[in-house]
C-alpha cells in the first residue's frame, strides 16, 4: 500500500470534522473520494498533505508513519496536493507558479520537460505565461493549480475537486489527463463532486458522510449502487 | 501619615521638617541636576551634623528634566506638609510648570539654576532666583562673541526649550545682523546631518548653541567630523564635563561656555574642598549656588521659621553672603542686580576652565 489512513480523527476548534477514517490507496491506483458538502473530503486531504494536524490515528505513506511529519517534508517524500480553492500564488506569474510546483526538484532539464508538458495540456497557460496568477479567471486558475501539482512529479497526487469551475469541455479533458498521468505511473487520490466522472475513471472509491466512511468499492460498483446514485449522481 | 490632597502647612513638631531638590537625576542631562543635588545635599548634611537633635530632611524629586513630569511631582511635594521649600526646579522648562503649583501652596522656591527671565514674571509669589538670569547671560555671551571672538557670521541653534530658545533669542537680539541663519534642533536628536548642512551652507564662523549638553555634544562631534571649523559658543546648559566627554576632547577644544555662575573653585569658604570630600568629585556647575540656596532655607528653619509662610517671609527679607555671592532678593524674586556676574569658560585640554567675566 502506498497510503494507509488508520482511524483518523480531526478537529476544527470545537468541531469534529473526521470521526475515525480508515482508507488505503495502492500503488498505481486512482482512488476517488465522494460525499456531500461538508462530509470531510477536503479535510481528509489536508490531513494527508499535512496542512492540518490530526487528533488521533495515523497516516502511513510508503510504509512509513508520516502522521507527525511537516507538510513540506511530505512533499519531498512524494505527496503533492492541488488544494481546494486552487491556491495559486496571486503575485507570481503563471510560469513562476508552475516553477513553484517543482520547488523540491533540482534537475533543470526534467523540470523544463514537465513545463512543456503542462503547457501542451493547457495552451491557455502558455498564452498567459507572464500574467499574474491572481488575475486569471476562475477556470484558468484551476488549470494552473492542476498543472502546478503535476510539476512535482509526485508518487501520490492529491486532487481536490480539479473540475470545479471548469467549462464542460474542459471537464472531459481534465479527467482524461488524470487517467493519462496515472497510466504514466502516478498514484491519484481524487476528491470530486462530479461523482459520475470520478467513479467511472477510478479504480476504487470511498463514500464519506459527516466525517465517516460509509461505503467503499470499485468505481463501477459504486456507480451502479442505487443509494449512491440517489444521493450523489442525481437523477441520471 | 499619608494625608494626600491636603496642603495644610500647620504642623505640631518643628523637627523632621524637609526641603526638596527638584530636577533631573536621570536622563540625558542628568549631570546638570546631579551637581545641584549634591550641592544642596552637602548643605543639608552639614546642617544635620551640627543639629543632630533636630534634623532637616532632603527630598529628591527626579524630573528627568521633563516639564511634562513636573506637575505631578510638584503636586506630590505640596501634599507633604512637612516640606517647606524647594531647591530648584533645576531647569527653566520644569520650573515654569512646577512653580505655580508650589507657589500656590506656599512652598518656598529658590532656584540655583533655572535662568529663564520669564520665570520671575509668572506671578509666583514664593519664587526666588539665586543667580543672574538669561537676560544677563544672553547679552554676556553675545558681547563675548562680538568683542572677544570678533565673529562676523554667527549661526544660532536652539532646542526649542524654555531655556534654550529664551537664551538664543537674547543672543540674537544683541547680535542683530551678524546672525546669518538659525536652526532648531529636537530634544534627544542624535543625527544632525541636516543642521550641519545648513551651518556649512551659511559659512558661519561661529555657532551659538542655546540648549543643553545632551544635544550639543553629538552635534559638535558630527560637525567637527564633517570638517566644520566654526567656533562653538554655548550657555550654562552645556557647561559640564559631560559635554566635553560626549563630544570628544579634541572636538570640544576651544569651545566657549557662558554661565551666570561663579567658578566653583572661586567660591568662598571651604566649599570646594568640602564638596570634593563629600562626593569625590570636583564641584560642578551650580553646585555652589545650590549649596547657598539650601543654606538660606536651613538658616530660616533654624531661626524658627517652621511653616511655609514664615519661611517665605524670612527668605523675602534675607540678606547675607553666601559662598557664591551676596544674597538679597528683589520684589519679583530676582537676585539684586549687583550680585550678578556672567562668566565665560573655555574648554582647554579637555577641561572646562574659567576664562573671564563676559564683557558688559
Amino acid at each position, binding site marked *: 500500500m502506498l497510503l494507509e489512513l488508520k482511524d483518523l480523527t480531526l478537529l476544527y476548534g470545537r468541531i469534529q470534522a473526521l470521526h475515525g477514517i480508515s482508507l488505503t490507496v495502492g500503488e498505481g491506483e486512482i482512488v476517488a473520494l465522494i460525499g456531500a458538502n461538508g462530509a470531510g473530503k477536503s479535510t481528509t486531504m489536508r490531513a494527508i498533505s499535512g496542512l492540518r494536524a490530526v487528533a488521533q490515528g495515523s497516516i502511513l505513506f510508503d510504509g512509513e508513519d508520516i502522521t507527525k511529519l511537516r507538510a513540506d517534508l511530505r512533499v519531498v517524500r512524494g505527496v503533492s496536493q492541488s488544494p481546494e480553492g486552487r491556491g495559486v500564488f496571486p503575485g507570481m506569474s503563471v510560469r513562476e507558479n508552475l516553477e513553484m510546483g517543482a520547488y523540491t526538484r533540482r534537475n533543470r532539464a526534467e523540470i523544463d520537460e514537465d513545463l512543456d508538458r503542462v503547457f501542451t495540456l493547457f495552451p491557455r497557460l502558455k498564452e498567459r505565461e507572464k500574467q499574474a496568477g491572481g488575475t486569471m479567471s476562475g477556470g484558468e486558475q484551476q488549470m494552473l493549480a492542476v498543472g502546478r501539482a503535476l510539476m512535482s512529479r509526485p508518487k501520490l497526487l492529491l486532487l481536490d475537486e480539479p473540475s470545479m469551475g471548469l467549462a464542460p469541455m474542459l471537464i472531459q479533458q481534465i479527467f482524461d489527463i488524470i487517467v493519462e498521468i496515472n497510466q504514466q505511473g502516478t498514484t491519484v487520490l481524487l476528491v470530486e463532486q462530479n461523482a459520475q466522472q470520478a467513479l467511472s475513471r477510478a479504480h476504487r472509491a470511498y463514500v464519506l458522510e459527516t466525517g465517516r466512511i460509509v461505503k467503499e468499492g470499485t468505481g463501477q460498483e459504486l456507480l451502479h449502487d442505487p443509494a449512491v446514485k440517489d444521493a450523489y449522481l442525481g437523477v441520471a | 501619615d499619608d494625608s494626600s490632597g491636603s496642603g495644610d502647612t500647620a504642623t505640631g513638631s518643628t523637627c523632621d521638617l524637609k526641603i526638596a531638590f527638584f530636577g533631573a537625576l536621570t536622563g*540625558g542631562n542628568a549631570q546638570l541636576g546631579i551637581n545641584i543635588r549634591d550641592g544642596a545635599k552637602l548643605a543639608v548634611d552639614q546642617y544635620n551634623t551640627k543639629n543632630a537633635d533636630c534634623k532637616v530632611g532632603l527630598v529628591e524629586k527626579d524630573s528627568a528634566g521633563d516639564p511634562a513630569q513636573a506637575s505631578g511631582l510638584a503636586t506630590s511635594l505640596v501634599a507633604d506638609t512637612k516640606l517647606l521649600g524647594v531647591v530648584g526646579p533645576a531647569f527653566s522648562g520644569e520650573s515654569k510648570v512646577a512653580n505655580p503649583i508650589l507657589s500656590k501652596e506656599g512652598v518656598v522656591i529658590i532656584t540655583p539654576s533655572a535662568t529663564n527671565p520669564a520665570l520671575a514674571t509668572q506671578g509666583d509669589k514664593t519664587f526666588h532666583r539665586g543667580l543672574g538670569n538669561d537676560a544677563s547671560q544672553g547679552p554676556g555671551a553675545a558681547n563675548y562673541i562680538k568683542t572677544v571672538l570678533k565673529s562676523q557670521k554667527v549661526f544660532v541653534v536652539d532646542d526649542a526649550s524654555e531655556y534654550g530658545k529664551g537664551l538664543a533669542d537674547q543672543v540674537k537680539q544683541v547680535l542683530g545682523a551678524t546672525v546669518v541663519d538659525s536652526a532648531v534642533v529636537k530634544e534627544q536628536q542624535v543625527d544632525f546631518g*541636516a543642521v550641519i548642512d545648513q551651518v556649512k551652507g551659511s559659512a558661519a564662523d561661529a555657532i551659538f548653541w542655546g540648549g543643553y549638553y545632551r544635544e550639543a555634544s553629538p552635534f559638535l562631534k558630527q560637525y567637527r567630523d564633517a570638517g566644520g571649523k566654526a567656533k562653538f559658543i554655548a550657555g550654562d546648559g552645556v557647561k559640564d564635563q559631560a559635554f566635553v566627554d560626549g563630544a570628544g576632547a579634541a572636538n570640544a577644544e576651544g569651545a566657549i561656555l557662558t554661565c551666570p555662575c561663579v567658578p566653583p573653585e572661586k567660591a568662598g569658604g571651604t566649599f570646594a574642598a568640602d564638596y570634593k570630600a563629600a562626593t569625590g568629585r570636583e564641584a560642578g556647575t551650580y553646585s555652589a549656588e545650590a549649596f547657598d540656596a539650601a543654606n538660606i532655607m536651613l538658616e530660616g528653619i533654624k531661626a524658627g521659621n517652621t511653616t511655609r509662610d514664615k519661611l517665605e517671609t524670612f527668605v523675602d527679607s534675607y540678606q547675607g553672603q553666601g559662598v557664591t555671592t551676596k544674597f538679597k532678593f528683589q520684589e519679583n524674586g530676582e537676585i539684586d542686580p549687583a550680585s550678578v556676574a556672567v562668566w565665560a569658560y573655555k574648554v582647554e585640554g579637555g577641561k572646562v576652565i574659567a576664562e573671564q567675566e563676559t564683557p558688559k
Partner: protein
Amino acid sequence: MNFQFLGDHFVSLTVTGLTQGAIYALVALGYTLVYGVLRLINFAHSEVFMIGTFVTTIIWAGLGFSVGDAAPGTLGVIGLIVIAMIAAGAASGATALVVERVAYRPLRKRNAPSLIFLISAIGASVALSEAVGALTDRQPRGMPTLVVPKVQFSFLGADVTNLQLGIFFSALAMMIGLDIFINRTRLGRGVRAVAQNPDVAALMGVNKDRIIMLIFILGGAMAGAAAVLYDIKVGLTTYSVGFLLGIKAFTAAVLGGIGNLRGALLGGLLLGVVENYGAGVFGNQWMDVVAFMMLVVVLLFRPTGLLGESLGRARA
C-alpha cells in the same frame, strides 16, 4: 521659508539626502521582508538596528579604537568596517531571530490575529531598547572618527565626499544582492511563495519556518550593515536611536510599496532626499513633517505605495 537656500544648495542637499536615504532603505528592507511574508509590522526591527550600532562600537573598542582615537590607514579602516559589518550583521541578524523566536513564533503557532503580533512586537521593541538603556545608563556612546570626509569631486557645485560615496554604494550593492536573491533564486521564490500563500507553499515543499527564519536573518543583517554605515556617518549611538530611524525606515518601506524590495530602495532614497530639501526650505525642525506629508500625498495617489506590493499576497 527659504527657497533661496534650496536653490543654492540643491545638489548638495540631494547628495546628503541620498546618503541618509541609503541608510533608510537598508533598514526598510527588514520591514518590507517581514511585512511581505508575515503581514506584520516588525516594530522591534528598529531595535535590531540599534543593537547593530552598539555592537559596532564594541567591536571597534575591542580592537582598540574608542572615541577620540585616531583612525588607522585606509586599509585598516576598510578592515575595521568589514569586520564591523560582519559582526553587526551577525548580531543584528541574531537579535532579529531571537525576537522571532520569543515574541512571534509562539503567536504564529496559535494563529493569533495580527493586532496581537503588533503588541508583541511593541513589547519586544520596548524591552530591547530599555534593556540597552539600562545597561548603558542611557548615556550615548561615541566612536572614533574612522573616515574623515574628504571631497572626492565636485558635481554641479556640490562637494561629494568619500564618506557619502562609500555609504551610498555599499548600501546599493547590498540591496541589489538581496534583490537578485529574492527574485532569481529558488530560495527567494520560496520566500515569495510563503508570502503569498503559506499553506500552499508548504504543499510545494517549502519549509515555512525556515523561510521565516531566513527573512528575519536577512532583514536583521541588512539592518546591521546599515548600523555600521550609520555609526560611521553619525559617530554616536544611544539606546533610543532606533525609534525615529525605525519609523522613518518603515515610512520609506510604505512609500515605496511595502513588501516590495525595490520599493524600499526607492522609498528610502526619496524620503532621504525630500526630507533634506524640506529641512533646507522650512528648517530642520520641520523635516519629519515634510517626510510624513509626502507619505500622505503619495498614498493618496498610489494607495499601495509607489511601486505597489509585490511579495505580498493580493487580498481579493
